[in-house]
């Protein structure tokens, strides 16, 4: 699980500043914006240029370049890697479609009131604690190797299926907590208003509380899905040939590590836009909140 604990943390910066200027570059507006942008650009060139120079001039750089950044190997492996990445996308999409409803069920179970629902709450708490405590790679290995080994008739042995199940169990635990935070952030007066009209508790949840909660947690949900997208690579340990496994295969064939860099590049190309989109959503939500708070 990487990076998913920083859910919904808004980007730093002056929250009262308008949205016209770029926060990344830190500029204002008009002429001063041009000046600050130039300074930002210049500073970036100096810092990253210096860093690059240090690396390129390192004593063993030629060997490293050959082992990790071989253009020919990259060009040869990229088509295979891209093809293998389709498996990652399948893992991600199928898992995500299952996680969204399952995690909501877990979150609702945990919030059911009254002594009669104690077992439901207990189950939800134990489940969320357990699957957030065990490292993802262990859950994948235990399910992927262990379940088929039981030999129960009808239980699938396809590692892809177990990979999906493991990812769903792992991420539903996280996502259920995101949902729960969202549900609890809806003011109790909303439920009171719904109940006062005669809606049952479940109806109030379904029509009034959850729709508002889900809207609020979309940015942290997307954040979790960025993590999920990357963690699809963990499924390689049980023998699913996805992009990381394919890179291993290519590495073994060429004695060159460049395919790993190729795999990393593919993740970057897919994940960074999603991360930027999430940041944009967070910023937009905050602007809205500021707008309605005045």
């Amino acid at each position: 699980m990487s990076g998913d604990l920083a859910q919904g943390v808004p980007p730093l910066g002056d929250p009262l500043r308008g949205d016209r200027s770029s926060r990344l570059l830190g500029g204002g507006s008009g002429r001063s914006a041009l000046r600050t942008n130039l300074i930002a650009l210049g500073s970036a060139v100096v810092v990253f240029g210096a860093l690059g120079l240090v690396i390129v001039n390192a004593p063993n750089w030629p060997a490293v370049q050959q082992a990790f950044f071989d253009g020919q190997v990259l060009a040869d492996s990229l088509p295979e890697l891209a093809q293998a990445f389709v498996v990652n996308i399948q893992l991600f999409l199928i898992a995500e479609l299952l996680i969204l409803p399952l995690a909501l069920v877990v979150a609702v179970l945990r919030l059911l009131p009254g002594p009669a629902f104690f077992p439901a709450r207990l189950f939800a708490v134990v489940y969320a604690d357990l699957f957030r405590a065990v490292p993802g790679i262990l859950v994948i290995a235990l399910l992927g190797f262990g379940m088929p080994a039981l030999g129960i008739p009808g239980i699938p042995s396809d590692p892809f299926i177990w990979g999906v199940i493991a990812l769903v169990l792992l991420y539903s635990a996280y996502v259920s907590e995101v949902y729960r935070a969202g549900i609890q952030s809806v003011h109790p007066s909303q439920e009171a208003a719904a109940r006062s009209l005669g809606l049952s508790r479940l109806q109030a949840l379904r029509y009034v509380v959850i729709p508002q909660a889900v809207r609020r947690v979309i940015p942290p949900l997307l954040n979790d899905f960025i993590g999920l997208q990357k963690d699809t690579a963990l499924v390689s340990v049980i023998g699913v040939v996805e992009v990381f496994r394919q890179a291993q295969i290519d590495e073994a064939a060429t004695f060159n590590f460049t395919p790993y860099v190729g795999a990393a590049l593919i993740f970057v190309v897919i994940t960074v836009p999603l991360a930027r989109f999430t940041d944009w959503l967070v910023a937009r939500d905050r602007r809205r909140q500021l707008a309605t708070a005045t």
Partner: protein
Amino acid sequence: MSQPPALRVEGLHKSFGRLEVLRGIDLAVADHEVVCLIGASGSGKSTLLRCIDLLEPLDAGRVVVEGTEITAIGVRVDEVRRRIGIVFQAFNLFPHMRVLDNVTLAPRKVLRVRAPEAERRAMELLERFGLADKAREFPDRLSGGQQQRVAIVRALAMQPQLMLLDEITSALDPELVAEVLNVIRELAAAGMTMVIATHEMGFARDIANRVCFLDGGRILEEGPPEQLFGAPREERTRQFLQRIVEAGRL
């Protein structure tokens, strides 16, 4: 008088932790009667209304609506609440729904009225209170007065036998108070039974058949508005009204 009162509250006690907010409330409201609850903040007005709607569990006492004890064990509270409308100080509209959906949600989901029929009735109500052109808006596009009128319409859409109004003008800018109070006047004229917690003494004097002064979790004094505002018997009522007059609110 063979007909049971619209609402009867007997010996109602309610505490939050160690703070006893209601210390034995007895109150009867006849059909078509409008009762105003006045008293300082913290005197228990809102808690009383929330207890009548069973939004807060009672510690002791009974609430009887149209002859049915709604606090009895085994009563389905959802069915009770659909007969009682409550409007809150903070409107509590559903922000993710358009005005029309705010109004039709309960009729559709609770009474199982079909959508076209529910919408037709909702539009009639919105029309009656001058809100027809806001039906497709989201609540945050409306003024406070408009939002509160929508909240009233939303409660009325369930055709309640009893309306509870909990300081419904306290969160409004002064110039928006009148439009909401006029809605209540119209409801009173139409014979709606209402229990109204309010700080608007002039309004209470106008509209109430009876005014109850709450102090320290009890109804200290009650009577027709002329008597309660004109010649209060209790010293504490006099003090309270004196402060209101000094604040220029009566």
